[in-house]
């Protein structure tokens, strides 16, 4: 039996800047995770991942990351994905200080 599908977001790194981006429902790449499309359906997730991977001139290394619905929108469930929304913990660099 396959494991139950848990909600996902499509995420990647921007080709030029290298920073973290998420795929939105209206096919934009956002730098704010809460704007990402939260995907509940496994088949739809695979299609959205293919959509992302096709955009190789914009993003690198697209994958499906676990997420859950929060008040503002999708939120990370794993600490690695949480760090990707913020940046490093030793300096105020990255997303935690960039609007």
């Amino acid at each position: 039996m396959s494991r139950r599908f848990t909600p996902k977001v499509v995420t990647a790194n921007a080709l030029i800047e290298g920073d973290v981006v998420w795929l939105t429902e209206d096919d934009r790449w956002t730098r704010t995770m809460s704007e990402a499309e939260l995907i509940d359906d496994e088949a739809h997730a695979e299609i959205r991942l293919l959509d992302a991977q096709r955009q190789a001139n914009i993003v690198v290394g697209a994958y499906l990351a676990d997420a859950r619905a929060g008040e503002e929108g999708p939120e990370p469930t794993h600490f690695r994905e949480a760090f990707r929304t913020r940046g490093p913990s030793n300096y105020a660099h990255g997303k935690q200080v960039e609007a």
Partner: protein
Amino acid sequence: MYSYTDFDEAFVRERVSQFRHQVERRINGALTEDEFKPLRLMNGLYLQLHAYMLRVAVPYGTLNPTQMRQLAYIAERWDKGYGHFTTRQNIQFNWPKLKDVPDILDALADVQMHAIQTSGNTIRNVTADHFAGAAADEIEDPRPVAELLRQWSTDHPEFQFLPRKFKIAVTGSPNDRAVTKAHDVGLRMVRNAAGEPGYEVIVGGGLGRTPMVGKVIRDFLPKADLLPYIEAVVSVWNLLGRRDNKYKSRIKITVHENGLEKIRDLVEKRFNTLRPEFGDVDQALLREIEAQFAAPAFVKRSTDAYEQARATNAAFRSWTDTNLAAHKAEGYAIVSISIKKHGATPGDATAEQMRIMADLAERYGHSELRISHEQNVNLPHVHKSDLPAVYAALREADLATANIGLVSDIIACPGMDYCALATARSIPIAQEIATRFDELKLEHDIGPLKIKISGCINACGHHHVGHIGILGLDRAGVENYQITLGGDGTEDAAIGSRTGPGFPAEEIIPAIERLVLGYLDMRETPEETFLDAYKRLGMEPFKALLYPPENKANAA
């Protein structure tokens, strides 16, 4: 130090130009990421968690002030004003943009530096004893040989698609400060019965998921045979090394699976073929390189000012006690500049600090700087009479922390604050341990103690050879830290042993504190180091400190 020939210059410029066009083709869509990735890795460019990362080679850890200033310039112009010195004597920039990288590489080429073969399945940057050319215990400066190896391995047509990466370390001293036994090939200079210098060749060491102490494949290799012999080692592994499984591809596994005897026989056979083909060309080249590494013109001067400053300034005395090492020239010292201020990120220097270190090297240090695998910077040749001035300038720049070799002189990989491979963070653990022991004001009492932290099993933070090693893992979605004890990165190399279950992040600092305070109670004399106490007492008493009965339920 070595200065590029016209050939080197043309080669490096050509590579930058090629990479510039490769980046253009990637951005305009002519190259896919799958096509581009091996090309960027060949030029030291990784994609990490939050950004690209450029790893720049500092060959055998040697820099001149002009190069250090250029690193500062790059940090300010294209990064966030700092650089990270690594355990392989490289410097990493954590925030470059893809489109800027060709310009950064050109800026490096302007000062005879590059990022070639700092990644990929090639022979990587050759590391060396950071005290090379200065250490009192040295037989010969190992850097000419390291430079020869760099030239030979760079773009070597046979060795561009090896089974996996290949790392060489070399030391000219019997006391190993270059962790040679944890490298694919380690070279340790020794003398034979006739008093001639040559190399003990160690093969198959490595850390990572299968840590192994290297084995001696040749106990004495004459200096003149070095290059054909190393070529024989690499070519034997290139054929035998496993390409079916990247976890079994390193030479340590090849040696383990085939046995040292078989590898030795194959290497000797291959060496016998290669030796005559080399003729004397490598030795002729080596002689030219050696001339460029001539020792500076050391002067004889009084050291009274130094002795006087030591007698009157306790902070200076403390710094000289921990941050100096014995120099081969009378009146000189090797200065270790700690890039480990309590609470700061191990190995990170700001552009401003880089410039100050460059200025000090120029003014007081015969224009030489070194990067150590312990993520510190050295001024290898400072006359003792200049030390009060050097210390005052370092203090001004927040670089005078007197902690070399002590509990807060921690090696830490970038961990999950930056690295895409990491399973947990390393830097905050290092920061908290250093801060805690600074509060306790005990680190000088504790004495020599090496804590090394890796944020994943690949062991960039050398945790296996830490007296106390810490490995960060992901345990069911939570950061968890395993402790090893008794590791040793010197000529007596040993892999540390796991103490037991790991600790969550909030419990790892108290656990380390219990270990170290417990050691203070158990040591026989103040001279007995943590490692010596561990060797005498074994694991059990340290385990009892880590896992007291009432806490047992909490350890994950």
